[in-house]
């Protein structure tokens, strides 16, 4: 593949930051995070910690029904409660605001407060603005709403049938979107293959469930007309103008201030319901208004429930185990709105064949609307689901052939010499050495020992199982995945840049401004500090990082799809390169040596091979800011640079979508091996061993990468074993608190050994690939495989998640009689 397709600026950054003969000075070290101290002291300044003068507080009334007409709302008792400032209903929204942004197709309108009817349990029906949250909640209880209940649409299969009640009448169907993509000759490949396996698989609805819920403070300035919104949303520079549209104000009058978020995992990815709502409330009363979701609202009425999918999937293969073709059909229960579109399936298509040489792929999607909370992003963004599907099929194929599960995978791995590798959908895998990762994980875990251990345990009647699974970890999305679904998309963005501003002040201190987020559990400040340390050889702890608000922000996209580390490193490297050119010129002048003889070392610039000929950055910066006449004649004052770093390698889909183009090309690779023992009387699992090896290209900070892998894995264990948002027959959420929605605790989580291989990307700064989601891409597949293996005497096939303890007991001992 020609590197000429690469973005020229990104190509320059890649060239300048490619591996050198000498080891890197700061990248690749497990430095302590520079973000940590303020959080360790309890000074994190999360959204709910912020107080503005005169600030009011809002609470919302959620619908008790899943589908109902709003006949009338009586707010008089609520308004009469002392301390209540205003009660807000859909009528106010209809009068003063426009619908919320939507990335979906068709007439699927969503308002920040329901206007004529409610479409899911918990949907906002009214809000109260009051002096404090206690009064606001009291007043919500005094609002009297008369509903007329409508037939509830809950089963996405039945929802597609003629005569079903409609979630959105204007759409005239509950199937919001339906399409089949075909790559290669799938039918012929299935006919020609010796064998195939088919499975009906169910992936349950869960959600990222950060400890810090979504929140915002709207602060409308009547004097200037500017609406300032402090929010723990991310990606605000990407689609900010859409929020302004909902508020019916010019985009320039909207100022979004990014606030530290206590976790996202997808749930704050362009999270706009709450910020729009807080801005709207503030505009109504002309004072700052804080709104923070409580846990119940977060579970029943958030921006992003995760995927909720029913699959019919088949894999064709030959007797020797060689995979031939893949056919996947999915009905995805999107809930009541299609706010974030079908991008999570676009995502799946970036690595649909996994690390395997499968040439022919068919992928059908029906996106169905039901009376549930809307679906959106959750760590993995759909690729974690498709990986579970693929690895399930591979395990079934191994069983069909009576072939070892490692061996069948090994035979199909894309060989190390074939990168960049073009997958059937058109996306490429940039680089890799999958055989190397496999060899390392087998060695790390001493696989043969555990195979022997399992045999002995089984002979003793114990239920020991081994799971072995692989995954790709695509990183750095381009925007095409959101619209290549449509032949005639309404809006076809191709930009997904990230920006950084680097300023070396007069005293030599480096201040960086980031442009699309605040810190939310990732390590943006550590990443940029390590990159700047690498470039300038300064102490990373001395770098100051701040975050621009939207009125000062350069183009950015923000975190999501494991893109941020790659993109922000590119932006910082690009800005550094410009600054270094200027510094070299000044230093060359001052030291009277050629620029080529200079190197950045010890917090400044020195002459190569001459230890005492050296200038500190402060010496150069003071000259740059204060002594114009000492600068080269054509050089302006100052020492600051901005870089907007575009997606390094992306291409357009073709017209008939038989080639989706390159849209997710920096692709890591991982293997996990788990050994578990199952107690068939209680269903309890014990982890005997859990090992992971990941290849995420060049590593910025091994320990924080370990943290991402381990945290993602445990989150994936939650998906595999515990988590599901349960709707009853009337569409009410049954587990709307942590009492009944179990998140993995420290007692549920295994101790995980994490290993790394580094195969740099040829296209990115330093060769970094993204790696925030890998753990969750593998854990559901590995738990399915390990439990299935442990219960092999009972002929168990895992086809749905979560796998509860009750299910395990039932598999082993039959249905409970009590």
């Amino acid at each position, binding site marked *: 593949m020609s590197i000429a397709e690469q973005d020229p600026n990104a190509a320059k950054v890649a060239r300048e930051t490619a591996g050198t003969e000498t080891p890197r000075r700061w990248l690749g070290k*497990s430095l*302590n*995070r520079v*973000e*940590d*101290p303020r*959080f*360790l*002291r*309890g*000074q*994190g*300044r*999360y959204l*709910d*910690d912020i*107080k503005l003068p005169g600030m009011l507080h809002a609470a919302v009334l959620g619908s008790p029904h899943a589908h109902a007409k709003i006949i009338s709302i009586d707010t008089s008792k609520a308004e009469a409660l002392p301390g209540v400032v205003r009660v807000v209903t859909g009528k106010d929204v209809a009068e003063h605001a426009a619908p919320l942004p939507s990335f979906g197709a068709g007439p699927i309108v969503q308002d920040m407060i329901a206007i004529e009817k409610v479409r899911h349990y918990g949907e906002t029906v009214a809000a109260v603005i009051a002096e404090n949250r*206690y*009064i606001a909640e009291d007043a919500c209880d005094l609002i009297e709403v008369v509903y007329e209940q409508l037939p509830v649409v809950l089963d996405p299969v039945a929802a597609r049938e003629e005569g079903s009640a409609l979630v959105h009448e204007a759409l005239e169907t509950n199937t919001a979107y339906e399409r089949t993509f075909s790559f290669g000759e799938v039918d012929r490949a299935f006919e020609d293959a010796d064998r195939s396996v088919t499975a009906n698989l169910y992936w349950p609805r869960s959600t*990222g*469930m*950060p*400890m*810090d*819920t979504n929140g915002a403070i709207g602060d409308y300035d009547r004097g200037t007309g500017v609406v300032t919104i402090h929010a723990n949303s991310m990606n605000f520079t990407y689609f900010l103008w859409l929020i302004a549209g909902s508020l019916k104000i010019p985009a320039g009058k909207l100022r979004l201030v990014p606030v*530290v*978020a*206590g*976790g996202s*995992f997808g749930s704050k990815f362009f999270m706009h319901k709450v910020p729009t709502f807080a801005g709207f409330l503030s505009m109504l009363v002309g004072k700052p208004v804080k709104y923070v979701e*409580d*846990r119940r609202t977060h579970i029943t009425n958030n921006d992003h429930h995760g995927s909720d999918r029913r699959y019919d999937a088949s894999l064709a293969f030959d007797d020797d185990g060689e995979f031939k073709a893949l056919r996947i059909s999915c009905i995805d229960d999107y809930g009541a709105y299609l706010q974030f579109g079908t991008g999570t399936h676009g995502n799946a298509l970036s690595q649909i064949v996994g690390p395997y040489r499968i040439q022919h792929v068919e992928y059908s999607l029906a996106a169905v609307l039901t009376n549930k909370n809307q679906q959106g992003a959750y760590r993995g963004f759909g690729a974690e689901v498709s990986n579970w599907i693929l690895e399930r099929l591979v395990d079934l194929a191994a069983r069909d052939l009576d072939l070892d599960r490692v061996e069948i995978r090994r035979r199909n791995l894309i060989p190390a010499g074939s990168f960049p590798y073009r997958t059937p959908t058109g996306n490429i895998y940039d680089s890799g050495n999958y055989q190397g990762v496999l060899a390392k994980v087998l060695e790390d875990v001493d696989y043969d020992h555990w195979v022997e251990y399992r045999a002995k345990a089984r002979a003793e009647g114990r239920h020991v199982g081994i799971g072995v699974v692989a995954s790709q970890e695509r990183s750095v999305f381009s925007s095409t995945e959101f619209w290549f679904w449509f032949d005639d998309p309404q809006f076809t963005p191709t930009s997904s840049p990230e920006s950084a501003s680097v300023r070396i002040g007069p005293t030599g201190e480096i201040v960086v401004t980031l442009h699309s987020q605040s*810190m*939310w*559990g*990732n*390590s943006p400040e550590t990443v940029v500090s390590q990159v700047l340390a690498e470039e300038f050889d300064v102490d990373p702890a001395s770098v100051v990082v701040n975050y621009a608000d939207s009125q000062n922000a350069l183009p950015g996209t923000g975190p999501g799809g494991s893109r941020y580390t790659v993109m922000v490193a590119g932006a910082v490297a690009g800005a550094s390169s410009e600054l270094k050119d200027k510094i070299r010129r000044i230093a060359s002048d001052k030291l009277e040596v050629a620029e080529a003889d200079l190197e950045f070392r010890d917090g400044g610039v020195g002459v190569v091979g001459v230890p005492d000929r050296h200038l500190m950055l402060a010496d150069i910066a003071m000259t740059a800011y204060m002594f114009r006449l000492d600068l080269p004649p054509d050089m302006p004052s100052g020492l600051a640079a901005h870089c907007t770093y575009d997606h390094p390698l992306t291409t357009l889909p073709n017209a008939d979508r038989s080639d989706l183009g390159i849209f997710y090309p920096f692709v890591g690779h991982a293997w996990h091996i788990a050994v578990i023992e199952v107690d068939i009387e209680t269903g309890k699992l014990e982890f005997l061993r859990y090992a992971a090896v990941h290849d995420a290209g060049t590593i910025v900070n091994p*320990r*924080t990468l*370990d*943290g991402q892998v*381990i*945290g*993602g*894995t*445990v*989150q994936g264990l939650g998906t595999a074993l515990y988590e599901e948002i349960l709707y009853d027959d009337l569409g009410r959420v049954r587990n709307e*608190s*942590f*009492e009944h929605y179990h*998140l*993995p*605790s*420290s*007692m549920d*989580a295994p*101790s*995980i050994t994490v290993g790394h291989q580094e195969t740099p990307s040829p296209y990115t700064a330093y060769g970094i690939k993204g790696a925030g989601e890998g*753990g969750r891409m593998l854990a559901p597949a590995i738990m399915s495989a390990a439990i299935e293996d442990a219960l092999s005497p009972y002929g168990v096939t895992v086809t749905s998640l979560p796998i509860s303890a009750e299910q395990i007991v039932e598999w082993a001992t039959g249905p409970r009689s009590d």
Partner: protein
Amino acid sequence: MSDKRVVRVEVNGAWHDGLVEPRRTLSDFLRDDLDLTGTHVACENGFCGNCNVLLDGETVRSCLMFAVQADGRSLTTVEGLAEPDGTLGRLQQAFHDNHGLQCGFCTPAMLLTAHEYLEAYPDGGTDEQIREAISGVICRCTGYQHIVESIRAAAGGAA
């Protein structure tokens, strides 16, 4: 609303007076009345433990207690763990050195819960004991492993 009550509590060594409604939670009192926002509320139902503080040395869910119930008692919050000059305390430093936090939201409760545990098990005990001790505090980021390592390191480090 009902009559307000005077509440007097010692927080991190200093006494504070407040005039609160009887229904005011301890977490709201700490966060909003005393501006000690290091105590975080994540579920308001007592299940996640993110609001844990020390009441006379023992962890309590500050979202489940009323401020008036703490009258006359002594509280420690995360703000009380560092040295007066801001130097990180032993546990805080161990969390820093071992990547025991990611988003930092559960961190104050984890630190205080670990503090209580290390008072009882100064040698750190076993990993299993550490895991059990912190099992009432939910962390969504870390998968707990680096938290366990942090607590073990704090036990092994100089006091």
